[in-house]
């Protein structure tokens, strides 16, 4: 098997938080252009996977390997992974008071450009792009001036995450429950945002609890993550099955240490 055609390759990954094993032997391979949905019960480790991949402090890799575009992911700092094209849309986006969205986004875009040996984007060009991105996710342009997530409603925060994705043009987008807390219209906006970004060069991991989103974003694969492992993979029809039957038929046993704890 040639690695060249693989964007992300996760091999037997074990990872822990606060000395607690959360990811317990996870394998996943994503080719450029693919959309993978990850579903699974609360506490299964879906968000943790996103954090481990993006290099959040406190999330320790115990064993296994991950490569992004052929490079060892764990050799890179958090910000280097981001500049290499890894993007995480947060399940709970945090506020940065006083730092305007525009300023924050431009600094992000410039950081990636600089890493690629490009010059900083001009303010005028960036403003134009940012305004377009606002329109796409249905946020008023005034949000560019507001502090990052400052006082945004839950749905606005999610759309703001998506706007950042549109501007950063990452290679691998991990969307962690970007659909939760959204009204029906917003759900379509998010789906359209994602669909418009689908291309041969861009892959997605879409973490969701709802089949609903997958009606709009047609995934190539659906995986069930349970107790730190992928316990079942299939195509889009798996999501329908899960919606109808829940997770219990997959018979996941709670880990022993959890019973003790």
């Amino acid at each position: 098997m040639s690695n060249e055609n693989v964007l992300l390759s996760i091999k037997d990954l074990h990872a822990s938080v606060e000395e607690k094993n959360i990811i317990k032997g996870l394998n996943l391979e994503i080719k450029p252009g693919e959309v993978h949905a990850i579903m699974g019960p609360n506490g299964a480790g879906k968000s943790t996977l996103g954090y481990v991949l993006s290099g959040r402090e406190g999330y320790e890799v115990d064993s296994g390997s991950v490569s992004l575009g052929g490079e060892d992911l764990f050799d890179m700092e958090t910000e280097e992974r981001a500049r290499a094209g890894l993007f995480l849309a947060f399940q709970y986006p945090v506020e940065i008071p006083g730092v305007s969205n525009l300023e924050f986004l431009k600094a992000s875009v410039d950081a990636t450009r600089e890493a690629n040996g490009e010059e900083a984007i001009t303010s005028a060009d960036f403003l134009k792009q940012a305004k377009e991105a606002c329109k796409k996710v249905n946020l008023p342009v005034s949000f560019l001036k507001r502090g990052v997530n400052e006082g945004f409603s839950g749905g606005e925060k999610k759309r703001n995450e998506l706007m950042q994705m549109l501007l950063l043009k990452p290679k691998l987008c991990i969307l962690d429950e970007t659909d939760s807390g959204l009204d029906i219209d917003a759900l379509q906006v998010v789906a359209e945002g994602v669909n418009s970004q689908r291309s041969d060069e861009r892959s997605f991991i879409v973490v969701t609890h709802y089949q609903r989103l997958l009606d709009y974003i047609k995934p190539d694969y659906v995986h069930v993550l349970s107790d730190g492992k992928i316990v079942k993979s299939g195509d889009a029809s798996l999501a329908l099955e899960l919606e109808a039957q829940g997770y219990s038929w997959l018979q996941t046993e709670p880990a022993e240490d959890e019973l003790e704890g």
Partner: protein
Amino acid sequence: MTEQIDKALAREYEAGFVSEIESDTFEPGLNEDVIRRLSQIKGEPEWMLDWRLKAFRVWQEMEEPDWAHVDYPKIDFQAIAYYSAPKSMQDKPKSLDEVDPELLRTYEKLGIPLIEQQMLAGVAVDAVFDSVSVVTTFRDKLEEAGVIFCPISEALHKYPELVKQYLGSVVPTKDNYYAALNCAVFTDGSFVYIPKGTRCPMELSTYFRINEQNTGQFERTLIIADEGSYVSYLEGCTAPQRDENQLHAAVVELVAMDDAEIKYSTVQNWYPGDEEGKGGIYNFVTKRGICHTNAKISWTQVETGSAVTWKYPSCVLKGDNSVGEFYSVALTRGRQQADTGTKMIHLGKNTRSTIISKGISAGKSNNSYRGLVRMNPGAKGARNFTQCDSLLIGDQCGAHTFPYVESRNPSAIIEHEATTSKVSDEQMFLCQQRGLDPEKAVSMIVNGFCKEVFKELPMEFAVEAGKLLEISLEGSVG
């Protein structure tokens, strides 16, 4: 994470160099003879010497205050030299061409070129080096508008009536220990007079530099804005990196006559001492302004330097409808200690004051806000709004607020809001996940926290202030 942030904040002190300049410096020590010599060197009139000596006697009777939330060894006032001036300044250079090039280079290195063509257009500078003013730029242009901007030692000769009338009128000699000391031994500083109905055509600024070892700097600034006039003034300060502590005890007096407005901004970057708290400037400063009817005084300060800061720029709102403002950013790290804030004294009817204070503490530093809002019986319908925000970086630093409120008029309204927050791991992670390195992330978060204050600074200096908080990238990531 905290460690990383702290490292990121550990920027180098870029102004820490020493200039090789031959100086005439007094022997350390303080007595009446020293004051007489000082007054003589400056060729002061008799009344000025008497004023100084009176202050000295008052000071000798006073006790060093100990109520501030700062801790430092007792200062030996006999170990300080009270006057130091570059030799080349002895025969008062008439123009820039006659000024010692080394002095000019010093200011250039600090980013303050004194050659007018190279300067920021629209900013006139008075450069004070140790105890003397080296040069004041754009004087001709200002004179055309009738604006006086010169060293206070020169004003004593040229405008003795103005100086005599206003010196000590806002901060009386007895006001406090350091103010009394300053009255006795002050050396140089700026004098500004804006005539009636005049809008000062340029930003005025004074740049204070301490260079000589073991000397204190006792600057004295007096700004008078006559009726209906406007001026924006900025001061900056730096000092070499030394293991010994040095004392800076300044007095600044502002007089805003009816309908006048004074905007006074400070970017304070005195040497803060090293990581362990060795060396650094003791910055004990008294700043106060008086507002007559409909007048406005606005203090904006960005305090990032000094080992110990003791400073409360204040407004006496004497005239009806007068306005006082205080916008402050104080950043402490390492072992720095800051006790700073303001006093808003409401005397007139419908007087208004706003206080926005942003304290950022990192490392093992201590950062206190101390503020007094007093509504006198005559302050009918007066209002104050105070907001004190503290941002903590790490868990070994301290942030404190000491708000004092005295209301003697039931119609006065006083509002106070306070928050304490931390630079969180989540915020850092969000920034890094978007490709920013930790240094950039911290400076961005801190700058965002200070935004309300920065927007009050004159444009040219907002950038400089932002940079001061910005962190040099080299070697700061572990």
